[in-house]
C-alpha cells in the first residue's frame, strides 16, 4: 500500500521536475482564477492561511501522534514561508471524524484557504497508518485524492513530512522538500581548537545523530544522489583526505590515497559512481574525477591556479567550479570530461563554492565583496545574478531537493564567533536559523 502511494507521490514530483527543467529559468505554475494555488514567482507573495486541526486518532495509543503529526505538518508548511498556520484557538469547527463532510463555512469564516485533515492509527506491531485530505475551502472542493502512508511509529515525523510535501506540491505545483535530511558538521569548543563531528538531522533539525567522533577535524560532507553515502574530508591521518561513509552502518573508508598529496572538496556525480574533488600536489590544486567502481582517476583541470569546489549539473554533462586562474576566485563551467572552461562570474568581488541547482537552471555561490560575504544565485550562463544574503561570513550553499530553498553556513565575528546553519528561499525571503553550532550543510534528496 505504502509503496504504491509513495510511487504515486514521486511520480507527481518527477513530472513537476521535468516541466520545470525544460523551461529555464524555472517558471512556476500560473494560477487559475478561483483555484487554490500559490504562484511561486510572484514577488509579493503573501503567506497562504491554512488550518491543520489535530489529526483524528482512530485507534488506541494514537492520540499523541494525532496531535504531533498535525503540528509537524503545520510547522513544515509555515516554515516554508509560503503558508501561514491559523491558530487552533480560532477554529469554529472541530474535525471529529475523518470522513464527515467538511463545514466549509466555518473555515471560510476564519479565512482558512486550505484545510488539511488527517487520521492516524497505530497497529499492534508498531506500525503507524496516516491518512490525510486537502481541501480548497473557498471553492469547497477536495484537492486531489486522499493519501495514506504506512510506516514504523519511530518514523512518525517522516509521515508528517510526506503529508506536508503533498500539500505543498498540490498548492504550489512544485515538488516538496520536507521529507529530507541534512548532513553537516557539528561544532563545539573555542575558535582556535574547534572540535568538529559529522552529524545528520532531519531538514528541520529534528533527529540529530552523530556520524563521526571529534578526534579529527572533519569538513564539508556531501550526500550521494540517493542519500545512502556521504563524502567528506577528514584529518584523521594528520592530512586532509577524502573519506566515503555509509550512512546506515557508519562504516567509512579513505577514498583513494596517494602519498604526499592532500584531497578535499569532494562531490558525487548524479550517477552516484563518479566523484569529483580537488587534489593538491605541491603548491597546485586541480580537479580530478574518480570512478568508485574501477578506481580509475582522471585529471579534469591542469592549470597552476587553484581549482576547487566542483559541482555537477543534474544531467551529469557539465561541472561548475571555482578557479583563481584570472587572478581572483571566479566561477567556471566545463564539460564533465574536463578541458576548456567558460567563465560565468563577472560581477565585483570574488566568487566561490558554486553548486548547481537540482533543477539545472541556477548556480548558487558564495560571493565575497568589500569585506562582506553573500549567498547568491545566477543562471548557469552567469546572467541574472541575485544576492540573497549578506553578513560578516556566509558561505557554502546547498539546495533543497526541489531547488526552492538554500541552506548555508553563517559565522559570526570575533573570539566568540560561532557557526549556524541558515536557510533562505531563492526569492531572498524567509531567512531563518536552522541549527546552531553547525557548519557545511549538505541537503539530501527527498527520501524514498
Amino acid at each position, binding site marked *: 500500500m505504502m509503496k504504491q502511494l509513495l510511487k504515486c507521490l514521486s511520480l507527481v514530483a518527477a513530472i513537476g521536475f521535468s516541466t520545470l527543467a525544460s523551461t529555464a529559468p524555472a517558471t512556476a505554475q500560473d494560477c487559475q482564477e478561483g483555484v487554490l494555488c500559490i504562484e511561486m514567482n510572484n514577488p509579493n507573495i503573501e503567506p497562504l492561511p491554512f488550518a491543520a486541526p489535530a489529526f483524528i486518532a482512530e485507534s488506541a495509543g494514537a492520540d499523541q501522534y494525532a496531535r504531533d503529526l498535525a503540528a509537524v505538518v503545520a510547522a513544515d508548511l509555515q516554515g516554508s514561508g509560503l503558508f501561514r498556520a491559523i491558530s487552533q484557538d480560532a477554529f469554529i469547527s472541530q474535525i471529529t471524524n475523518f470522513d464527515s463532510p467538511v463545514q466549509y463555512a466555518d473555515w471560510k469564516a476564519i479565512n482558512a484557504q486550505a484545510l488539511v485533515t488527517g487520521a492516524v492509527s497505530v497497529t499492534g506491531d508498531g506500525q503507524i497508518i496516516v491518512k490525510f485530505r486537502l481541501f480548497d475551502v473557498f471553492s469547497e472542493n477536495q484537492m486531489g485524492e486522499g493519501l495514506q502512508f504506512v510506516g514504523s511509529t519511530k518514523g512518525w515525523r517522516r509521515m508528517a513530512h510526506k503529508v506536508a510535501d503533498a500539500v505543498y506540491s498540490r498548492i504550489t505545483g512544485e515538488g516538496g522538500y520536507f521529507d529530507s535530511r541534512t548532513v553537516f558538521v557539528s561544532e563545539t569548543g573555542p575558535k*582556535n581548537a574547534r572540535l568538529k563531528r559529522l552529524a545528520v538531522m532531519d531538514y528541520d533539525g529534528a533527529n540529530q545523530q552523530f556520524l563521526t567522533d571529534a578526534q579529527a577535524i572533519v569538513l564539508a560532507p556531501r550526500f550521494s544522489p540517493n542519500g545512502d553515502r556521504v563524502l567528506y574530508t577528514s584529518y584523521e591521518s594528520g592530512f586532509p583526505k577524502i573519506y566515503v561513509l555509509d550512512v546506515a552502518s*557508519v562504516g567509512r573508508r579513505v577514498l583513494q590515497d596517494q602519498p604526499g598529496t592532500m584531497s578535499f572538496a569532494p562531490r558525487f556525480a548524479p550517477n552516484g559512481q563518479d566523484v569529483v574533488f580537488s587534489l593538491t600536489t605541491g603548491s597546485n590544486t586541480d580537479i580530478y574525477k574518480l570512478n568508485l567502481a574501477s578506481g580509475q582517476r582522471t585529471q579534469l583541470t591542469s592549470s597552476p591556479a587553484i581549482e576547487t569546489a566542483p559541482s555537477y549539473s543534474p544531467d551529469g554533462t557539465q561541472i561548475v567550479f571555482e578557479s583563481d586562474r584570472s587572478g581572483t576566485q571566479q566561477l567556471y563551467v566545463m564539460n564533465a570530461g574536463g578541458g576548456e572552461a567558460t567563465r560565468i562570474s563577472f560581477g565585483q568581488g570574488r566568487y566561490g563554492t558554486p553548486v548547481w541547482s537540482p533543477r539545472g537552471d541556477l548556480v548558487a555561490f558564495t560571493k565575497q565583496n568589500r569585506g562582506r560575504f553573500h549567498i547568491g544565485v545566477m543562471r548557469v550562463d552567469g546572467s541574472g545574478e541575485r544576492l540573497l544574503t549578506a553578513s560578516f561570513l556566509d558561505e557554502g550553499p546547498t539546495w533543497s531537493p526541489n531547488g526552492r530553498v538554500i541552506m548555508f553556513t553563517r559565522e559570526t565575528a570575533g573570539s566568540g564567533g560561532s557557526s549556524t546553519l541558515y536557510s533562505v528561499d531563492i526569492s531572498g525571503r524567509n531567512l531563518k536559523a536552522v541549527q546552531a553550532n553547525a557548519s557545511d550543510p549538505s541537503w539530501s534528496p527527498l527520501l524514498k
Partner: protein
Amino acid sequence: MKTFTKVVFLTTSLALAACAKSPFDRSGDAAGAGANGLDNGGVSTSALSPNSPAYFNQTIGDKVLFNVDQSTINDTARATLTQQANWLNTNTTYNAIIEGHADEQGTREYNLALGARRAAAARDFLVANGVADNRLRTVTFGKERPLEVCSTEACYAKNRRAVTVISAGVGS
C-alpha cells in the same frame, strides 16, 4: 567508530582532542605555533640549546607570515626560513611538517588550497637552501586552526602563516 565511547570523549581535554594524529612523531618539547602545538607551556626559556627544537621554535621562529591572498615569501620570511634551513641542515636527525594556514576571510575550500600554496612556498625555500626534500612534508589547515581569534586585520595577519613543526626523524 562504533567502539568509540562517550566516556573517552568527555574526559579528553579540548586541547588533546584537537590534536590530529600525525604519521610523524612530534618531538615532546617542540610545541610551537602550529595547529597541533598551540601550547608552549613548560618549556624553559633560559639557556636553550641551539640544537633543540625549542630553540628552533622560540629563537629562530617556527612561523612566517603572508600578505592577503598571497603565498610569496617576503623579506622577513626569507630571513626566518634561511635560519630554519640552517638549523635543519645542522640537526639532520629531525624532520619537519610545514603547515599552511589562512585567515578566516575566505571560503573553506579556497583557503585549504591557499594554505597548501603557503606551506609549499616555505617548503620550496627550505629545499632551495639545502634541506633534503624527503625530510619535509606539507599540510594545509586552511582557516581551521587560527592562532589568533579576533576578527580584525591584527589577528588575520598572524593567522596567514606557514609553521614549520619539528618532528623526530628517522635517525633520532
